[in-house]
């Protein structure tokens, strides 16, 4: 029983990070119609930012969170303006590849600059654990979870209650119609991309509370992020959020009850079966 609860807890923690990554992918997919292969790298860059903020300024990741998000937003925005916007004017197949090429560049730049060794943040503000008897909750792991929920919540509020957010949703539903009512799609696209980078950045920064920091870390989240988005119903942001949580829980459970190596296989099989019978994802289509 306690193993079950522990696995559930770990799964939700892991899933909350995946949820943010998935939301970023869903945002870009919904608004621009391309798959963002670089969410994992945005997460990774933010992790390094958080690490160096900690190392040279002594900032706890919770405190450097807003800065990391801001930096990532700017990076995302610039990348959109320089690269993505031009790619979108070309043929569809090329568009699909540009974020992959981008992720290659980002990962290897990180490899070059920071080298491959694993780093961690030595001391964090909130540490220790809560012993509930049937399970132990690590406070360090609780922090990213809380941050993820807060960031996701803010995203929902932003997309549903603010004018800019609604503009983004409108553009993702129908670009032409949105244009006709005066929404500037270029600006909206850039905003959406920047936002997706910021969300991934938040996830990354939060992760540094207990996760290892290294250039290839993004890969751990990228594929599952994609799968989470499809599970949740492609393009749907709330769907992606829940898809991420489910993926995290599935990952944790298969890791505990199955051979660690084959848990990946197990999850993919479940995913492939799901898409067969519910092609619009768990929460329906757009």
């Amino acid at each position, binding site marked *: 029983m306690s193993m079950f609860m522990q696995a559930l807890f770990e799964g939700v923690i892991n899933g909350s990070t995946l949820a943010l990554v998935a939301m970023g992918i869903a945002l870009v997919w919904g608004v621009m119609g391309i798959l963002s292969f670089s969410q994992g790298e945005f997460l990774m860059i933010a992790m390094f930012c958080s690490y160096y903020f900690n190392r040279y300024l002594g900032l706890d990741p919770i405190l450097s969170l807003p800065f990391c998000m801001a930096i990532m937003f700017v990076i995302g925005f610039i990348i959109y303006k320089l690269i993505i916007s031009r790619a979108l004017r070309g*043929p569809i197949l090329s568009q699909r590849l540009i974020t992959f*090429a981008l992720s*290659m560049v980002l990962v290897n730049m990180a490899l070059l600059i920071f080298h491959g060794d694993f780093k961690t943040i030595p001391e964090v503000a909130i540490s220790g654990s809560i012993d509930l008897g049937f399970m132990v909750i690590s406070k360090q792991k609780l922090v990213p979870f809380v941050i993820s929920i807060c960031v996701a919540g803010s995203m929902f509020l932003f997309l549903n209650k603010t004018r800019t957010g609604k503009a983004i949703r409108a553009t993702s539903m129908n670009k032409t119609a949105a244009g006709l009512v005066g929404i500037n799609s270029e600006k909206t696209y850039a905003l959406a991309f920047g936002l997706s980078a910021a969300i991934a950045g938040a996830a990354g920064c939060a992760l540094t509370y207990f996760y290892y920091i290294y250039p290839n870390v993004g890969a751990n989240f990228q594929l599952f992020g994609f799968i989470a988005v499809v599970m949740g119903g492609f393009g749907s942001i709330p769907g992606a959020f829940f898809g991420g949580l489910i993926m995290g829980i599935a990952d944790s459970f298969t890791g505990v009850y199955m051979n660690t190596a084959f848990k*990946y296989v197990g999850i*993919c099989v479940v995913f492939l079966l799901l*898409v067969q019978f519910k092609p619009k994802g768990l929460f329906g289509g757009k």
Partner: protein
Amino acid sequence: MKKILRDNKNWFIGLIICTALAIIFPQVVKVRFVWNLLSMILVWSIVGMGWNVIGGYCGQVSNGHSLFYGVGAYSVALANSYYKLSPWIAIWIGALISMALAFVVGKPLLRMKGHVFSISTMALAECARIIFINWKWCGGATGVYIYSKHVNEWAYMQFKNPLNYYYVFLMFTIATVVLIKCLDKSKFFYYLRTIKGNEMAAESVGINAASYKIRAYMLSAAIVSIGGSLYAQFMLYIDPSMLMTLNISMMIVLTAVMGGVGTVIGPILGAIVLTTISEYSRVYLGKFGGLDMILYGVLVILIVLFMPGGILSAVEEQSGKILAIFKKEKPLKKIVEQ
């Protein structure tokens, strides 16, 4: 067949000229590194042309073709290890296995469209990679060595002279190009293009889209598998990390798309450019931990931004002034001559 030869006389003449150049070139440039590079270019040409069938002509973007690449490679390696089977036979066994695999996974997978299909292929390929890493019979993570002591060179496709690899691969490449060229204006490929253009319209003119998609998937699996088999013979050692990663899958896609999607020789151009860049940067920049891949990625970005239709269409635009008859062959000749 005769009719195709007649209608495309000029293309075939161009092919013969290019083949002649391809045969002569390494005799002129006697650099071992270049010979190996050329062999790699040919492997990627075959693989790119294979992907093109399902991804370029039929428009179903598979990001998981490393699966078939790996199956092809493992087929020759394991056939050699366990049964001392010659690759000349094992290559075809691998192709058959890949086709069967494509049929089995294709049926459910190809019911999905667009990004969902792409993501599903990625999940599948990743599953396969993990299965291979843990499958002891296939050598697991340590991979498989192809036994290479005292074997008959030609029977086992293992050559001391690297140039022989090149000529054998050239044979396969030319066969593939001719196959694709013959299919290019065939009912099969027209149907694939129609499915790519508008699946609903395709069904309304009598095309069984599901069936044709699977056929295209199977053909592309077979061709990519052959490419993987040749690669294994060249390297004489394989493991899952060399063959079945997402990077490999995406590079397969890049070769075809960068070169010119849905065209006969586009993937060859893509292979020439991308493989040359990646090999040269690996050798000269690889020591700077990752710089070679940065260059590769930057190059892809530049090609996407400035040659959105692919290298072939950019080249066609530039050489449009030159004799229209040799329009399709001249660019290939130019690049090979360098």
